[in-house]
């Protein structure tokens, strides 16, 4: 019921908003905020409630497809938090828009509710077609809102946004259709199985199609053309939702739909990591030069999401919680920054940060919030941003220290542009007259303050966020493991190997450089080429390093209960496990009563 409500009630709310008259500003705001508070409550219940799923209902048959498409929603930690972001930011956007829009508030609220419903659907859909449906549906209310409430170039921005994102996901639609013609039905697991049976070249093509859609949505480096103009022309509350919740759909897609479906090889992974890092650096550099405050935030958002994507494809064990915390932190902090730059724009009448300044003296309370938000975006320890960035850094370090170094560089740059931003907006001498009567209202201030408090809370106790990933119920997991027998075997082997490594006495495995030299010379005699020898020796050293690592594990064994399982295949498997929790069996009819805990 919760899931149905979260997806459909926003649309109902949007329709009910029509009942208000356009002229009656007050009743519209009251009604909208009331609805939004209710949705926020629902989303909190969803986050707290753990994994739930609805009963799959057969929706329709797409012509030419082997199996039916289902109306099937489920929630796991990641999706639930994204829903929380979308509901929370929508509420604050509605509060924030009170001071921004006069007469048209009703229409704005209608758009926001429609957008919220579509976003919730995207994050909760368990069926590929349903997911795609909502993924596309998000664009429409967003584009309409930009076109009707945006800045000077709003038409252009809305067109760019809509065309870019829709065209970006068109290849995914084709790929999805193709997959549906060979998959048993449109649920994740059957699609994944269908992909397994395809030749490699086809897999790659399909993968690129899927990746493209999410890359454009996120956006990642070469496909970010729509972002700056859209975020800067959209009204500030909408920009906050776009960057705080909607752009997460891209990263969410990587985690929830790309990683479990496609088998990855090293080239693809490293390509994605490099693309993520490239956009992190590129975004930071562009933000360093940006003059338009909203554009600066847009590029900073791109930088952070680039880091998130790099983290996703690092595929380390810590990846999922790390990226989740980073996304939640970025959603809240970027959101509140957008709201606040919207207030600043209201006060000064300009978006150009060179023309702002001196707000610290004219509006101290606002400046306090602004400075605090900026500092929290810097990933200062104690804020959620730090936990996210550090854990992602850890994941990247696990992949390659060099990548971690690049990410560190982008963190330095982020300090540079955020501080420049703060300095230009609130410090220095005032360069303009503040508009009279524009103040941060009490409710608005409380809303922004609450977001900042939330960031601090998650910073000091990230378990609020990460714990939602552990809430798998045991029977479902067991069922899951039975189904994917192949992956299971791999894991078992790995675990066994690992255990052996821990049990064996350690002294016998210490390889000294002289041993390596001996090995090398004997290999030369055996006639191995230089490359082969290097490879072999590397392997030997790596094995030794693993054993050394297990020494450490023994040291803090009591602290750690989970076994250290390494290797890309089982990482993939773990993601599958986390993401496909609660999916029905592929072959059997998807009505599985056990898992339909919701209805």
């Amino acid at each position, binding site marked *: 019921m919760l899931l149905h409500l979260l997806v459909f009630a926003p649309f109902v709310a949007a329709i009910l908003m029509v009942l208000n008259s356009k002229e009656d500003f007050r009743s519209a705001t009251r009604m909208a905020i009331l609805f939004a508070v209710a949705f926020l409550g629902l989303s909190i219940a969803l986050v707290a409630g753990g994994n739930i799923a609805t009963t799959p209902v057969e929706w329709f048959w797409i012509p030419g497809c082997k199996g039916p498409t289902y109306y099937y929603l489920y929630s796991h930690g990641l999706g639930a938090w994204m829903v929380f972001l979308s509901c929370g930011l929508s509420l604050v956007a509605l509060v924030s828009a009170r001071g921004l829009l006069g007469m048209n508030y009703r229409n704005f609220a209608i758009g926001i509710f429609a957008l919220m419903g579509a976003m919730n659907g995207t994050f909760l859909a368990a069926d590929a077609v349903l997911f795609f449906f909502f993924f596309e549906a998000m664009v429409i209310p967003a584009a309409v809102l930009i076109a009707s409430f945006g800045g000077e170039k709003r038409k252009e921005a809305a067109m760019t946004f809509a065309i870019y994102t829709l065209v970006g996901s068109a290849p995914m639609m084709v790929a999805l259709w193709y997959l549906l013609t060979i998959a048993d039905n449109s649920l994740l697991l059957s699609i994944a199985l269908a992909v397994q049976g395809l030749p490699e070249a086809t897999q790659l093509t399909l993968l690129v199609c899927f990746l493209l859609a999410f890359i454009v949505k996120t956006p990642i480096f*070469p496909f970010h*053309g729509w972002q700056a103009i859209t975020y800067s022309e959209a009204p500030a509350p909408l920009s906050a939702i776009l960057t705080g919740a909607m752009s997460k759909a891209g990263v969410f897609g990587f985690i929830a739909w790309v990683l479990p479906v496609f088998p990855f090889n090293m080239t693809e992974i490293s390509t994605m990591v490099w693309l993520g890092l490239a956009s992190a650096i*590129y975004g930071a*550099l562009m933000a*360093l*030069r940006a003059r338009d405050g909203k554009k600066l935030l847009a590029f900073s958002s791109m930088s952070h999401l680039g880091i998130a994507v790099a983290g996703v494809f690092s595929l*380390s*064990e*810590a990846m999922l*919680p*790390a990226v989740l915390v980073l996304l939640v932190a970025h959603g809240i902090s970027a959101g509140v920054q957008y709201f606040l730059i919207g207030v600043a724009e209201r006060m000064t009448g300009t978006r150009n940060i060179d023309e702002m300044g*001196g707000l*610290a*003296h004219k509006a*101290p*309370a606002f400046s*306090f919030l602004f400075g605090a938000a900026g*500092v929290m975006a810097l990933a*200062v*320890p*104690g804020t959620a941003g730090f936990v996210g960035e*550090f*854990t992602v*850094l*850890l*994941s990247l*370090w*696990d992949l390659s*220290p060099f990548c*971690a170094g690049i990410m*560190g*560089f982008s*963190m*330095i*740059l982020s*300090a*540079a542009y955020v*501080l*420049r931003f703060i*300095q230009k907006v609130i*410090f*220095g*001498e005032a360069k303009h007259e503040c508009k009279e009567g524009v103040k941060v209202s009490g409710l608005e201030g409380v809303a922004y303050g609450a977001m900042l408090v939330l960031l601090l809370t998650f910073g000091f*106790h*990230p*378990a609020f966020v990460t714990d939602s990933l552990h809430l798998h119920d045991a029977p479902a997991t067991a069922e899951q493991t039975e189904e994917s027998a192949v992956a299971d075997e791999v894991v078992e082997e790995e675990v066994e190997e690992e255990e052996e490594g821990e049990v064996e006495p*350690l*002294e016998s495995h*210490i390889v*000294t450089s002289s041993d390596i030299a001996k090995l090398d010379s004997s290999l030369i005699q055996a006639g191995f080429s230089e490359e082969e020898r290097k490879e072999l020796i590397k392997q030997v050293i790596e094995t030794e390093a693993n054993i*050394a*690592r297990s*020494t*450490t*594990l023994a*040291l*803090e064994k009591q*602290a*750690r209960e*989970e076994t250290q399982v390494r290797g890309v295949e089982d990482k993939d498997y773990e993601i599958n496990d986390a993401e496909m929790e609660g999916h029905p069996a592929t072959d059997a009819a998807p009505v599985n009563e056990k898992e339909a805990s919701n209805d």
Partner: protein
Amino acid sequence: MTNIPLWLIPLFPLLGTIILASIAVASSPNKKGAPEGIVGAIAVLLPAMSFVCVAALASTMPDSGIRETLCNWIDIPLLKVDIGFLFDGLSRIMLLFVTGIGTLIALYSIGYMHGDRGFARFFAYINLFLFSMIVLVLSDNLMLTFLGWEGVGLCSYLLIGFWNKDLKNCKAANKAFIVNRVGDIGFLLGMLCLITIGGAGALNYDLLNQFIQMLIAGGHVELVLPMLSLAAALFFVGCTGKSAQIPLLTWLPDAMAGPTPVSALIHAATMVTSGVYLVARLSNMFVLCPDVLNLILVVGAFTAFWAAFAGLFQNDIKKVLAYSTISQLGYMFMAAGVSAFDASIFHVFTHAFFKASLFLGAGAVIHALAGEQDMRRMGGMIKKTPVTACVMIFAFLAIVGFPGFAGFWSKDLILERIFTNCNWVFTGTWLADGAVPMNKIFYVTGLFTAVITAVYMGRLIIMTFFGEYRGDKETESHIHEAPAVMLIPMVVLTFGSIFAGYLWAESIGITFFADSLAPVLGAAQAFDPARMFNPDMMLEEFIPRVTTHVNPMLFAALGTIAALFGMFVAWKGWGKAHIPSVKGASTAPEGYAKGWTFMWDYVHMFFIKAVLIVAWICDVVVDKVLQAFQWTISAIVSIVGDGATVFQVRKVRLQLTLSLFGVALLVLVVLLTGGLV
């Protein structure tokens, strides 16, 4: 032992921060600002309460220290960190002077900041700083230390840019934060190195030490040494950022833009020494990496020398003190580089007193002169402000190492340790077997630096307090002694800078300080690098530590001579010379002095320019190319679209006719393909 929970110590300043920040925000619309009495009382009392806690704990602490795990912080695969506190000999010393000096300086600030519009805000920042600093030194793992580490950096940023109406201050604050950020990334990556070696448990100091002991016992050091050295080097990068060592030191002179109490507390006494604290805290790890220790030694020596020299050219009274701080920090790192960690902490301790006194005295002078900081416009102040002058002169004697004063004991100790402990080894170079007396080289560097220290400090004292007053006549009439609320902390600190040294006066047999640090640092100090490697493999490559036994009195005499010689030079140079009164606004040095002073700024500028050029390329070239690409595609689409509209005549009837033909065509197709026939 006293039953005070450790978390109370950081809690008080945190409470203070929250209360004062609320007052600051609530009173912001008010023209008069918050009531200074209440704000001042809160701001002083809460740090004082944590000082009391610390003192109570310190007197009853068992030798092994107090450990307390509060709760879990981060718990994800690969990373499990707790919020826990560790109160041992090292954190005791640090906490005592952090909270003690913090309280005194808060008291001083009530007088100094009187009448400022951001009075409550200032004290909120100060309390936040004390909270972060306490967390930094009290935490039992690196992650929590990093929280304090960045927290103090943040407060430093906020306080440097406290008077944010002037963009110059904001720029200095930005510079401080960004330069520190570079170091912080080093810290972060260092932690990652440790995690790679020892798992997330290695972030805990106790577990790290255990782990290292296990490595040594098992003879596995060689296996992890590259990674461990990398970790140590990266941590040292972090230290160079926070403690203003080469090459990340340019921010500290600029940081003098903040209010003077801030300079005293953050940029002299406490925050900048946290790098030294970190090295001492990780001493067990650092001693495993002789290369990194050598690096620290060289960097420390070079920084000490360079900064002392640069201090000679400054005209701004606070800048002189800033360079002096950098130079003293160099001393501390030199001591750490020869693995005399207790000596470096001792110098941190004494330095905190005398440098705080100097800064507070300078603050009183600036206060008396209504904001004038240029020494060329001072002079003869001893008649007008005798107490301040006495305070500064005593502190001056301490910093130059005049026998009996605090600085004498600590500086003397460091120089002695450099001479005795330096185990620099050149392996594989042309110096390999020639016994170059590296210990002597570094000792002489240190001694020479001490002479320069005496010279520039003497210059400062002479230019400020002696001779004729060189400023405006108008301001001269307003010169007054500081109020009591400012004088009391100054006097207390002066007593500290005279007598703090007697905690460890080795020449007269007092080793109280060293004994209290021994449980923490003893193992590392006594560590012999030769032990860590497999004896039969690597022994011949490492010479055992040189422990030359020499007469300590000789060192004391040499140090005294250096101080007296420096003072003599200063007296010769500036005592009688007529210093021209200047009218120009700039206090920056010129000519060759400028080149020397801003040497590292130029180096930084190179990197900044490089980044900006790349950013320019991104903005102007790459972005435009991408836009052109998009534009091309959209242009192609619209051209094709225009082509299609040729068929779109604006006559509905014609369209319908065409569609009729279309229907006919369809029917024909159906007929031909046999749909019906």
